[in-house]
C-alpha cells in the first residue's frame, strides 16, 4: 500500500496536502483498494463551508458507497471536475490526478497522522 511521506492522513483514510493557502484532499491508496473500482464521485458545491470531520461527498463503487470527510474547517474552493467523466482516476492515481477537493483552511497538525502513524493504522486494521 502506497503511503507517500509528504502527506498528512486521517483515521478515515483521507490524505491532505498543503498548496499555498489551500488544502488538497483525496482518499488513500488503501481506501480506493477497499472500495473497488469507483464508478461515480459526488463532489460538494464550490462555496460549501465544512467543519473538520464533516462529510464533503461520496464515492460509489459497484458494491459500496463511502463518504469522504474534510480534515479541516474551511470552504470548498475547487473540485476535481475530471472525475465526472473519469472516476477511475481515484483508483489509478489517488494521490495525484485522483484528488477530490481543494478547501481553504489550515491543517491542524495534531489532529492528523503522519505517514508513519498512518502505516501503523493500516497494520492494525488488517488484523
Amino acid at each position: 500500500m502506497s503511503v507517500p511521506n509528504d502527506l498528512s492522513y486521517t483515521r478515515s483514510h483521507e490524505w491532505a496536502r498543503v498548496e499555498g493557502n489551500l488544502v488538497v484532499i483525496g482518499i488513500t491508496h488503501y481506501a480506493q483498494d477497499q472500495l473497488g473500482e469507483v464508478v461515480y464521485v459526488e463532489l460538494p458545491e464550490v462555496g460549501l463551508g465544512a467543519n473538520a470531520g464533516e462529510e464533503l461527498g461520496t464515492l460509489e463503487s459497484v458494491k459500496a458507497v463511502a463518504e469522504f470527510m474534510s480534515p479541516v474547517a474551511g470552504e470548498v474552493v475547487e473540485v476535481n471536475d475530471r472525475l465526472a467523466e473519469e472516476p477511475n482516476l481515484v483508483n489509478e492515481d489517488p494521490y495525484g490526478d485522483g484528488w477530490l477537493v481543494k478547501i481553504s483552511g489550515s491543517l491542524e497538525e495534531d489532529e492528523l497522522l503522519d505517514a508513519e502513524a498512518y502505516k501503523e493504522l493500516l497494520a492494525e486494521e488488517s488484523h
Partner: protein
Amino acid sequence: MHPWVGAGPDDRRHLLDELGLDSLERLFATIPQEVCVDRVDLPPGQDEDTVQRALAAVADRNLTLSSHPSFLGAGVYRHIQPSLVDAVLSRAEFFTSYTPYQPEISQGTLQVIFEFQTLICQLTGCEVANASLYDGATSVVEAVLFAHRVLRGKRNRVLVAQTVHPVYRTVLDTYAGAVGLEVVVVPPGSDGRTDPGRLRDEQACCVVVQSPSFLGVVEDLPAIAEAAHASGALAVQVVTEAVSLGILAGGGAFGFDAVCGEAQSFGVAPGFGGPHLGFFACAEKNVRQMPGRLAGETVDEEGRRAFCLTLSTREQHIRRAKATSNICTNQGLMALAATVWLEALGGSGLRDMARSCLARSHELKRRIAELGGGWRLSYPAAPTFNEFLVEGPAGGDELARRLAGDGVLAGVPSRRWGGNWPDGLLIAVTECNRAADLDALVAAMRRVS
C-alpha cells in the same frame, strides 16, 4: 405428511440418524419454552380439491366487473387482456424466479426489465425509468422525495393539485408527516382544471399534478411545467390511466422533471386493489436520485451483450441508512405483464386502443349531455380522455346505488373523499364498453331521472 414438504416421516428419521439426533425437537432447543406452542390456533390443512371449492365459493360471493356493464375508474381501469399475457406470466421461469442478483442466470428477467424501462421512457417522454414501484400512490411519494433530494433538501414544501387522486394524496400525507414535508393542496377552478398561476411557490421543491386528473380532465401541462420551473421547483406529472399515453404526450415532452403513476391499465388485473404497478421516470441527469431498481446494459467476459441490476448502491441493501428509498421487492411480475401486454399490442395497438377509449367516452358524453332529467356533464368544455364527471338527479352515492340496482356499475361517487367539485359520478369508459354497455347505462340513467 404434506405434498409441499419435501421430506416425509421416513426421510426425516433417516436424516435425524445422520445428525445423531433422536428427535426433530432437539433442533429447536434454542427457542425458549415460554414462547412455544404445540400447534397454532388454526384448523387442520385440507386437500387441494376441498380448498379450491372453498375459495371458489368465496369468489362467487363477489360481483365481478364483467358481470354487468361497468364504468368504474378512479385510478383502476378495466382493459382487454390478450390471452398471451397470462400465458407468459404463468411461465415458471418468470414467476418462480428471484430478483436477478445473479445476472448469469437471470438474463430473461433482466432483459424484460430493460424493455419495460425503455417502453416507459417512450411513453412518458422521459429519459430514464426504473424497474417499477409498488403502485401509483407510493410512486407519488417517491417522486416527491426525489424532488426533495434533487434540490438537496433545501425546500420542504410540496404543491399538490387537489385533483391528484385523493387516495394518492392520503398516502402522501402519511409519508410527508413522517419525513417533515409540508403539503399544500391547490383546488381546481370552476372549469375543473388546475390554474398554473396558482402553482408558483419559491418554497416548493415540486409541483405535482395528475393528467388526466381525478376528474378525468386533461391539464395544461406545458403551462404547469413553466410555472413550476419559474419558481425553481420540479414539475411532476402523475398518470393513473396509462392507456392515455397512447394518445396524449407524457410530461417528459413538456419538460416535466418526473412522470410517475399507475400502469395497472397495461395488462394487470384490477384485483380488488392489488398487486398493481407503480412506475417512475425522470431526466437522465437525476438518475442517481431515482428510487427503486434499475437494469442496465453491459457486456460479459466474452463481449456478449448482457444486462444486470445497476446503481444498486443507491438502494437499501448497500446504502442502509442513506438509501434513496426503502424499497426492496418491487413489482417485477407486474412489470413483466405490462411489457408483454404492450409488446403484444404494439405501438399501433396501444394507439388504437386509446382511440377506442376516446371515441366511446366521447359518444357517451354526447348522449348524457342530451339526456336531460337532471343529468349533466359537470365540465362540458374541459378536455377529457376516457373519464368524466356527471351530476344527476341525486348525489353521487345515491346515483351509484340506484343504477347498481338497475344492473349497471355506473361509476365512482366523486366526493367520497371530499374535494372542490360537484357531487356526482366519475364515469370511465374503455374499449371493454361495447355500444350495448353505453345503451344500458343511458337507459338506466333515463329511468332514474
